[in-house]
């Protein structure tokens, strides 16, 4: 059993000093001046601790110094250390290490960080290797993270021991930190990584097995297609939940972007906000969106193309939210969120909306506009 272990030692440092992330060198220096202490190594150790009793069975491969070596040796592991020793580490080190680990044939990559770290890992390995994230960053929009550092360790252990066999796709998302610090939030969906699926640990709640989730997604897609009206534009949002709609229609799907369909034919692929406004141009349209990422957003994260203006043109009554029950339960009672950047549009969503969860099932769920 080969386990790759990468710690982004600076992840999470901005949070307690109110900096909203630590992407960028100047910000990191500011965080340190403000008295920020490394949080990530502590959390990474919490995860690794779970694996301690199985130390002898696991070949641990990690990076120099605070990027994993220190955490591992502190716990008594004797890891194989790769890469060069450096005083200051940056995102390129995470990417390099992840690439090396992929080449070395690790079975699973356990990494600690936030959305930035997840993106770095994704850039390096895409969906070639199963991963599980230890949540340690300020921003955790990505769904590749376990709900708790200990849970990440447990998922890793169970996967390595063959107790978890199923893998799910989980979103890698990140917001523009510079804009975020100025008070604007835009998050982009960068892609999907493969995560071992332990219903209890990844989502914190038991909410059905992945094969049931898949069947539910299929059933939702059937419902959407069966209810499609002639000559109406269907704006299909990004994400894996909407993918079966396009697949069943036999149309090419843009996983990370927006497609437009009319009369079950593709009108346009991977469209931006301006394209949508131009194509719809006041005609009848419906938006099909799903909850993207781990925080419960339907608008404003991972689908900025569906702007306030687009939503106003289409109308709230023409929005269909789709999600599996598992996704709803994993919100832990928190409302579905809308953050379009347009306060008036956001407010319009406050209240309850139907979420289609299967062919014949809907959940009435609270929606909150930020």
């Amino acid at each position: 059993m080969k386990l790759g272990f990468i710690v982004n030692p600076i992840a999470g440092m901005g949070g307690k000093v109110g900096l909203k992330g630590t992407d960028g060198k100047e910000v990191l220096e500011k965080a340190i001046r403000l008295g920020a202490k490394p949080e990530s190594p502590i959390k990474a150790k919490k995860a690794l601790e779970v694996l301690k009793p199985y130390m002898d069975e696991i070949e641990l491969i990690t990076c120099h110094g605070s990027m994993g070596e220190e955490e591992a040796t502190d716990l008594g592991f004797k890891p194989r250390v790769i890469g060069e020793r450096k005083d200051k580490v940056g995102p390129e080190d995470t990417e390099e290490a992840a690439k090396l680990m992929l080449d070395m044939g690790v079975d699973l990559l356990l990494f600690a960080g936030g959305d930035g770290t997840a993106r770095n890992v994704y850039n390096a390995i895409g969906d070639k290797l199963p991963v599980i994230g230890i949540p340690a960053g300020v921003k955790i929009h990505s769904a590749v993270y376990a709900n708790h550092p200990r849970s990440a360790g447990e998922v890793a252990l169970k996967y390595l021991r063959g107790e978890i066999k199923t893998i799910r796709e989980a979103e890698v998302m990140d917001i523009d930190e510079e804009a975020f610090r100025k008070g604007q939030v835009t998050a982009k969906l960068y892609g999907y990584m493969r995560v071992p699926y332990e219903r209890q640990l990844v989502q914190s709640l038991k909410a059905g097995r992945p094969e049931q989730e898949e069947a539910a997604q299929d059933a939702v897609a059937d419902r959407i297609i069966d209810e499609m009206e002639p000559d109406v534009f269907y704006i299909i949002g990004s994400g894996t939940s909407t993918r079966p709609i396009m697949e069943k229609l036999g149309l090419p799907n843009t996983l990370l972007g927006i497609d437009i369909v009319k009369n079950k034919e593709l009108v346009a692929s991977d469209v931006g906000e301006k394209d949508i406004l131009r194509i719809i141009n006041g005609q009848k349209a419906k938006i099909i969106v799903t909850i993207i990422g781990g925080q419960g957003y339907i608008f404003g994260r991972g689908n900025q193309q569906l702007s306030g203006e687009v939503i106003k043109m289409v109308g709230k009554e023409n929005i269909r939210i789709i999600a599996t029950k598992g996704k709803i339960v994993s919100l832990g009672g928190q409302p579905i969120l809308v953050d379009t950047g347009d306060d008036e549009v956001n407010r319009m969503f406050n209240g309850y909306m139907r979420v289609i969860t299967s062919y014949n099932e809907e959940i009435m769920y609270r929606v909150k506009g930020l």
Partner: protein
Amino acid sequence: MAKVKIRENYHQARWDEPIIYELSTPGERGILVPQPEREIREEAGDILSKLPENMLRKEKPNLPEISQKHVLAHYLHLSQETLGSNLNNDISQGTCTMKYNPRINEKLATLIHEVHPLQDESTIQGLLSIYYRFEHMLKEISGMDKFTFQPGGGSHAVYTAASIIRAYHESRGELEQRNEVITTIFSHPCDAATPSTAGFKIITLYPNEETGVPDVEALKEAVSERTAALFITNPEDTGIYNPIIDEFVKIVQEAGGLCFYDQANANGMLGIARAREAGFDMCHFNVHKTFGTPHGCSGPGTGALGVRSHLAKFLPVPTVEYDGEKYYLDYDRPESIGKVRGFFGVAPVILKAYCWTMMMGADGLREVAEISVLNNNYLQKKIEAIDGVETWYAEGRRRLEQVRYNWRKLYEETGVGTDDIMRRIGDYGIQHYWTSHHPWVVPEPFTLEPCETYSKADLDEYAAVLERIAEEARKDPDFVKASPHKCASHVIAKPEELNDPSKWALTWRAYLKKHKKEEPSLG
């Protein structure tokens, strides 16, 4: 105060008992049936030749061949690997309403075990009168106008309710339009599943985080001209009673929908609140929960379904009626949804429930509710004092007869979750607890329901055991995770193997066939 007894040194028997077929030795006999006397043989002749050809077996049945002593030993061993229904501390089975079922009613039920459901009505007048009288009692308890005892269990009764609702809207020409049923996530799952089976779309309401019950706004948003009905439990699984349930009912009825009250478990409100006063059109009781009859390992049970007069004509046939002189079964009900089960329900169960209700009396029924609620509130205080336990929703508000607690805090602190604790409870000679229906909206859940038949000592023992296990989780989490240590069966290391259809079969014969083993030859 009496000292709380925890069974420190409990240990369950583990017999490693084979399947009875594996104990079989060809030729071994439990009983040697005597040959009939010559005169009898001659008088009867060849009786087998009188049976129709198509009823004759071509092969002898493959039954285990085993001596009397070993048959008895086999079943004794199996029984020792259980905790024994009715006699254990079953507080743990929240939502199941496990109460003691008085033995005398079991005895009384044997009085009718030779009655056949095809007997002429004139020969079962006593039995029919018990149906009639018990129906009258349930009418009084619920405020409904007519009942059927045909459904064989709770979900069966709820499915029957969904079928009646379908018939009702069909009779008004509105079935196509009214295709949505509203329920809540903490209502019993059959309140969604059975209307779905009956062809309705299901809209599920989630609770408000603070009150623990859905907001009126959520219901209003869900209700429309498409609404066929509301199917709701109250109190829900959380034990929280929705205090404005009458308002919910009104909103649905004003939109043209019907309201069904799932009262499978009415233990918290017998003699205190009725479905009718809340405005419901229908309700049901599980007599094997609320009315003192056993949960017979999935049956026989009875789901008694009651309706208001405007829905009575749709009830299953036959109904039990009285014409002033005699009781009779009425099949002449043209708008009935038909039959939902053979004959007219499980007669011994109705007899037991009737006896139980007669023994309790009106005051006794109310006392059942009062003690159940009191027991629950006492237990809740003790359970919530355990470090690591939380109760979500409606802080500071009393629950009725059960509570959904959770171990989220303990889990985050120690890695010991609700499944681990559930297994460990068995090591103290107590039944595993019920976690939650799915999905687990509350993380690491467990649900306790201390009905009226448990003593204070039972409650104290239960709380003390959970407190002990929480301490163990902090001191030695791996020990709790590896539990049980003293039970007949241990943790299932590879649960997926139990689902392997290539390995397992439902019968011995299918098992042999699957593994291409020959059945032992039968001489």
